């Protein structure tokens, strides 16, 4: 199996805070890889480093064969990203924002693609509204769309479900599951463990910036263990060390 994402001793320090500590991880092509961890464990920092939004202070990482420090723009050109916090630009409408993304990413034929997404995520009535006037969930729909509209080989998504209602969460989960069946890869950070168990094929657990565990979800099932209880016992044990 080909490797789409690999880190070697990846480290990020913010002054005295070690947000990510010597993490070595590899993700195989095709499948949903879940990056799990409690609040502040370094998930967002990992995704930011992997997409060239911030520079590692140590170690290295390649994404789709490209070095994230040497060629961050190249990496971002080939992947799709949903950042944790960012929202679409205030003074463009939803439709205009997708046209903007299409122009920057050089996506041909944006109109029908955008229409498909408006229908699929059920926000066609908002497509001509300025982004600043959209609800939090609708903005998240738009961010979701911009990450997948060019059908990237790899998408890195940070807590994508957090602002969606239960119906939308189901729609999105199904979409993600279908997306990887076509041989593409998704790298998702989340602390909703039930969702991770349901849709992920591989996972890693971060705690205080260190990697506690990485392996396939199927392995747990083989040992008759559940991801949530496994996660909790591992993190609690680490907390007492």
């Amino acid at each position, binding site marked *: 199996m080909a490797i789409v994402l690999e880190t070697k001793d990846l480290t990020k320090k913010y002054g005295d805070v070690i947000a990510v500590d010597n993490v070595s991880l590899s993700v195989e092509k095709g499948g949903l890889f879940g990056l799990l961890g409690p609040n502040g464990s370094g998930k967002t920092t990992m995704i*930011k480093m992997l*997409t060239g*939004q*911030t*520079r590692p202070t140590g170690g290295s990482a390649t994404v789709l064969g490209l070095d994230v420090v040497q060629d*961050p*723009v*190249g990496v*971002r*050109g080939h992947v*799709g*990203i*949903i*950042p944790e*916090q*960012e*929202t*679409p*630009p*205030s*003074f*463009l*409408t939803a*439709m*205009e924002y997708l*046209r*903007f*993304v299409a*122009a*920057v*990413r050089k996506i041909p034929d944006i109109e029908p693609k955008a229409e498909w997404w408006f229908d699929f995520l059920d926000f066609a009535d908002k497509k*001509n*509204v*300025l982004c*600043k*006037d959209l609800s939090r969930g609708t903005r998240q729909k738009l*961010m979701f769309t*911009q*990450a997948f509209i060019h059908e990237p080989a790899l998408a890195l998504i940070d807590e994508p479900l957090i602002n969606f209602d239960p119906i939308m969460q189901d729609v999105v989960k199904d979409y993600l599951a279908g997306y990887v069946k076509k041989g593409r890869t998704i790298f998702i950070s989340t602390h909703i463990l039930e969702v991770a168990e349901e849709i992920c094929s591989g996972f890693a657990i971060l705690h205080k910036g260190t990697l506690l565990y990485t392996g396939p979800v199927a392995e747990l099932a083989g040992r008759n263990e559940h991801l949530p209880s496994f996660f909790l016992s591992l993190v609690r044990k680490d907390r007492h060390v």
Partner: protein
Amino acid sequence: MFELFTSMMKEEWRVHSTMFGSLSFALFPVMIFGIAFMGSFLIPLMQVTLPAGNLTLIVHANYLMLGIMVGGFGLLGNEVMNRRFGQASLLAYSARSLPLSEQFIFSNFVVKDTVYYFFLWVLPFGFGYIAASPFVGIPLARALLLLLTLTLSFLFGLCGVFFLSTVYARSRPALWSILLILGVGWGGLTTVTGTNPVLFFPPLLLNSAFTWANLFISCVVLALLFGVAIVLFNPESVGSEKMYKDSFTPLMRRLSFLPNPPFNAKDTLDLYRSGSLIGQTIFSFLLPLGVIWFFLALLGPFFPPHGLLFIFAITTGVIASTMYTWVTMFDTFGPYACLPVAVSTLIGSKITTFAILQVLPAIFIAAVAILSGEVVYLVPAVVLGISVSFYAVSVMAWLCGLSPNVLVYDVKVLFVYLVLVGIVLTVFTSVAFADPYFALSSVILAIPTWLLVQKAKVRWDAADPAGF
């Protein structure tokens, strides 16, 4: 009640001090102090050519301008407030969840900003002058009076523009009416009395002859302007969830001759739809320049023939260079970070949008040249103003990347900026004074401008993209 205010003060301090270190931020007023202290020793020298009254005039004009430039609080809708540091986490925003009125939060915010500007700019300058006064033989009482009148001058600019900008945010016709009344009154006063109304500017009157009555009246006027502005302030833009048809695509097509049309189209829509294009043009460009025109006019006799036009062209250039902050205030690098865009591309495209905006100063300088009957020097004046503007913006881009509003409070940044821009201003003022047509030589600034922009791109690509 006072807690919100003190928390905001602390927050502002931390926002700046975490960005470039407490020391660097704390040194900022020290530097202003130093400039004023050393500048004071030049006073005896300058008085040889320039009567003392005129020097006072220039300094007051500068502080009035400073007030005008920072006073546009009324233009701060929620959007700019949210995006100011790329997050909605500042107290001015998050305090809305507390049982406090919007007006209360906002007035705290404005007072906090005013106090900060006061401590960063006005007070250190006044102290510098006071500290130097024994050495240059100025009585202490005069130095103290100057501190008072400079403060008033700054507050007049700030409150005046604060008032006008909240009127503008409420109703455009109301603003036009007020400006019209002011303009007619101003013009009438000039023609009837035959003197420049600037001489009736309260802080200047106070400075030449102090009276308690005058001070009292000044304070009442300031309080009125401020109070009315706070009452008029309205944080929500009216009529939300408007539908817009796609203007992005046609705009991008029209701009397709530029290197990065999608970015320029986005910048243009940001400026236009937020109301900033007109708002900023009035409050950050036309108004300060209009005021400075009246002040400079008083100094006309001390300049060589045609000197006034070129001084004005250069001033316009410096003010026009701040248009870079108009195009960088809507976004941090954050929203672009999910796209294949380098910081350098963004800097380049912001400068392109800035270049389009330079039509405004070009027209403005041309108009002034025509109105002042110096049409023959229209071309050199425009060339000088625009060259200076581009040069100053390249310095800004090199020093501050995409965050000029924030990084200007870094002492090192401000110092280098003042030196690099100051040298050029001095050189080309002298050149233009020597012979108006020599001003054309300022096109040579294109070379350092280009080099600085290249350096800016390399520098900010190598830096860790900041969150502000």
